[in-house]
């Protein structure tokens, strides 16, 4: 026994236990990578120009110019904030019934499937794509942005909230039901207290995401600071664009820090 052990070196167990699956995955990955890398069209002469271009491009951002478009930046940030707050509030509110319908411990099967399908559809398409359609339908400006963010918030919050509702402690739910409570008081006294801290955390998290997205959807005409940024890019006012990017990054970092604090405090 001792001799047999002495003969070989100990190795940590691999992540994928089955050797066959491991080798097949490796082989598949290699074939795929070869195919993918082989089909990329790269215009190498254009890429080679990229170096000097990158330098001039980056240099044209300096120094960031906060003043000459100062008014537009302030208006853009304010519009983004309106859209963010309004859309988060409305979206979080509308997500609640959808989440209740999409939790398999509360809703009957058909309702569950319909709600899950709505969530899947609202979550699949990136915000910017949704914004394109809302801008087409409702015209340029903050209203289209507000609707886009609301739409995205509903799917996101409903899905995560539904998962929290499915994970509640069933013994408390049963205890409240044993008192003979009706469906709504059952929801209010058994489910709501258990998921409320998580729901508040989710809403704050989504506020943070919505601000980031509000900076993007302006590219397709849905208002906010993104619109100011696109205008600056289109006019080749790169100094102003740099200032706007800095403003976006600072606000994003501030909201992320705050949302992290609040979420830790709530939980």
């Amino acid at each position, binding site marked *: 026994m001792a001799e047999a052990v002495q003969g070989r070196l100990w190795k*940590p167990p691999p*992540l994928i236990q089955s050797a066959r699956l491991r080798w097949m995955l490796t082989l598949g990955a290699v074939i*795929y*990578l070869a195919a*993918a*890398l082989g*089909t*990329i*069209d*790269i*215009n190498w002469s*254009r*890429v080679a*120009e*990229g170096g000097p*271009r*990158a330098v001039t*491009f980056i240099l044209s951002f300096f120094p960031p110019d906060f003043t000459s478009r100062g008014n537009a930046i302030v208006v853009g940030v*304010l*519009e983004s*904030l*309106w*859209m963010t*707050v*309004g859309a988060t*509030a*409305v979206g979080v509110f509308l997500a609640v019934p959808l989440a209740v319908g999409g939790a398999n411990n509360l809703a009957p099967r058909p309702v569950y499937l319909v709600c899950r399908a709505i969530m*899947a*559809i609202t979550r*699949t*398409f*990136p915000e*910017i*794509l949704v914004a*394109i*359609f809302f801008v*087409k*339908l*409702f*015209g340029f*400006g*903050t*209203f289209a942005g*507000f609707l886009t963010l609301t739409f995205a918030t509903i799917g996101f919050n409903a899905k995560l909230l539904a998962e929290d509702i499915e994970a509640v402690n069933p013994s408390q739910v049963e205890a409240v039901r044993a008192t003979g409570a009706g469906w709504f008081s059952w929801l209010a006294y058994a489910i709501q207290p258990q998921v409320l801290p998580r729901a508040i955390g989710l809403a704050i998290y989504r506020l943070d995401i919505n601000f*980031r997205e509000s*900076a*993007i959807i302006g*590219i*397709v005409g849905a*208002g906010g600071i993104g619109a100011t940024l696109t205008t600056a*890019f289109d006019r080749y006012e790169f100094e102003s664009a740099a200032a706007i*990017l800095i403003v*976006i*990054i600072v606000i*994003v*970092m501030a909201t*992320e820090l705050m949302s992290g604090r609040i979420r830790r405090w709530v939980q």
Partner: protein
Amino acid sequence: MPIVVSDTHSTWTKRTPAISALVWMGWLIGVALVVVCLQKISAQTEWFFVADAPAQGADMISRMFPPEWGYGSELLRPMWDTLTIATIGTSIAVVIALPLAFLAARNTTPHVSLRSLALFFIVASRSINSIIWALVLVAIVGPGVLAGIFAIAFRSVGFIAKLLYEALEESDPRSAEAITSTGASGVQVVSYGVWPQVLPAFAGISVFRWDINIREATILGLVGAGGIGLQLNASINALEWSRVSLILLLIFLAVLAAEAVSARVRAAVT
């Protein structure tokens, strides 16, 4: 759990009067803020267009059906490119994020100054959305798949590194200590005491980001960075709604498939 006492009986309440007044004030301020925001938005809105929107929408949807199935054969290549952007972009991000995460985690970093530098890169990568990365990269390396790959990679580095360094910091110090007590070197402690603990999390994070990247890669074409977004943008601009609906359907299926794969892999490794 305060109790309100009156002359005849005492009642249990959830909060003291002072706290409930505070909560009420909080709600008041919150609701007022939302109302102000909605008013500002509504003041800027051309309600004439909004009133027209249902008719417009119905018209658009009627033009979307039936999707132009014949166009599908021209979409195979863009779909393949989208997959390539997401997969290669994620792979590059994983390779960069791995050392970055080890530098950023408090328990594995060689030096404090390296840690702050790594954290700076992580934050910078995360605060710029991939479509803005794409805008910048298209200007630098020219339109095409390459710009998309690097846009995805730059945005994902911060995401993967952040989640991985948090996992590293949460790893159980006792296993690392046990390896240290055998006289192992620093590299050996990390590879035998820390790395095996975070390996499943690492695989899960990478696949999760790949799944997000499939979704993001579908839109990078809007700014010229390759993938199916290019065809989508062209079809929307040409008002060819029957092609738009086919592309949207394809994106929907691709995202669903990616989500299913990622969910299965994550369930298998954790």
